């Protein structure tokens, strides 16, 4: 796995799983030796399932309710997250559109990826995204998520977000102003009401492709394959 070069010292040689999460044999309190595998023992290993997309009057009403009450996860991934606090101020009040910020991924529906994603943050963002319950949407803010933006030739930031996470709405700009963010929310509401914001299902359908892309760059993957 490490690239050896005779004149240049190796940066580090390490296994890419934390020592506490590795498969190993430990001594139980009663003296016997048992094999444990923490990642398999403590985390659920099921694959996620697609949920059926229904249509009809009831589903239209429920989609309308989902669109009118969007709860955003309060995780500012990049420099675009400085455009989110102005939305709570009296000038661009987003509460009147039903958009609220929630602190935990279990209770939020929308994840705003604001700006560039370094490899370190991508691992945490994937972890948060997979813990969100369906139906969930992603808004990608800024030009760094579209084609790499001004960090296109960096060794540490990704260029195209939709190869790693499924994106519903892109908002272009560097940084987009809060009015552009509100326009993006309006577009997302339109998509939800029309029943077309189903990228989370697409994520589950092509899970292997997304995971292969993610594992190609996140080399110390010491978490389960799907974080429930």
């Amino acid at each position, binding site marked *: 796995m490490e690239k050896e070069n005779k004149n240049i010292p190796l940066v580090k040689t390490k296994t890419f799983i934390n020592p506490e999460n590795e498969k190993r044999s430990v001594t139980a309190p009663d003296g016997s030796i048992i094999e444990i595998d923490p990642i398999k023992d403590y985390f659920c290993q099921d694959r996620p399932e697609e949920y059926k997309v229904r249509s009809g009057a009831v589903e239209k009403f429920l989609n309308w309710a989902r669109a*009118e009450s969007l709860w955003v996860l309060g995780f500012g991934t990049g420099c675009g997250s400085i455009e989110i606090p102005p939305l709570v101020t009296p000038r661009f*009040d987003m*509460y*009147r559109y039903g958009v609220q910020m*929630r*602190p*935990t991924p*279990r209770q939020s529906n929308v994840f705003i990826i604001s700006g560039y994603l370094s490899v370190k943050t991508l691992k945490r963002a994937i972890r948060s995204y997979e813990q969100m*319950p369906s139906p969930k949407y992603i808004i990608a803010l800024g030009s760094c998520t579209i084609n790499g933006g001004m960090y296109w030739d960096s060794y540490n930031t990704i260029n195209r977000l939709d190869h790693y996470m499924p994106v519903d709405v892109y908002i272009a700009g560097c940084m987009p102003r809060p009015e552009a963010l509100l326009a993006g929310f309006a577009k997302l509401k339109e998509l939800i009401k029309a029943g077309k914001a189903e990228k989370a299902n697409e994520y589950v359908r092509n899970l292997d492709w997304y995971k292969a892309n993610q594992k190609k760059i996140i080399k110390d993957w010491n978490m389960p394959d799907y974080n*429930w």
Partner: protein
Amino acid sequence: MDYSITKFLWTLLGLFIVLNWGMLMSSTMRRIGARVSGRFGIPWYQPWIDLTKLYSLKSQVSHGAMFFLGPVFRLMGGVGIFLFLPIIYGSDHWSNYSFSGDLILILYFQFFGMLGMALGAGEGGHPHSAIGISRGLSQFTTIEVPMTLAVISLAIQYQTLSISDIVAAQQGGFTTWTLWTNPLATAAGMLSLLGAFGHSPFNLVKAPNEIPIGPPTEYHGVFLGVLRTNGAILHVAEAALFMNLFFGGATNWVELIVKTFLIYFWSVFVGTVFPRFRIEQSVRWFLKVPTIIGIIAIIIFL
């Protein structure tokens, strides 16, 4: 129809009205708070949309049977308070299942909801839930102290443990309310009401930016919907309880709506002015001033 079935249906109707009034009251309070800060605030129908969205989530993660039962216990606490509370005095339909000892039973139901929530949230396995629960329970235990002292003082004053009798003794005009005949017990009760409603300065447990929301951290979807439903019922039921004990009860629905709104407004009003207390500060505060007021209130009537 049978008398017990009609009574049951009237109680359900009362529960439904109280639920809707609770949601409308919470959105109105948030709009008032938003207008104070110069914003427009959420639309008045937002709590209904939130509940619809929560109940229609497509995938949920459960952590076992106790996790599921936590919100159910909490809802039982709220509904229990409502069931044994005579809401409208003088009307047989709306005085739900109250009997002669219901004051003590209602105090029990208040604490029961919080305990059930603690068990369920602990099952979630999130370390933040555990911290939130320990804080919430320790704060709630000290809130109950002045409230219990006020209730004991009332029981000694009116020589009864039945809420209907307490309300009956306060009829006949403005000046017979407990507010004027026993002001110390009223003061102790209203101060502990600030803690029970969970607004500033005692909202450390539920505030979203304090260890991401404490006990309800892992709850989402239907579970969170049940918790929020209970929140709506509980606010109105507690305000109605205090209205019956201290402010003369209500003889029709309009009086109930106005009085519960004003009682809830008292806690929001205090909340917008004061910052948050830490848990040890609030525990210390509750065991000082309101407790002493409550003890004096009992001694006067002995």
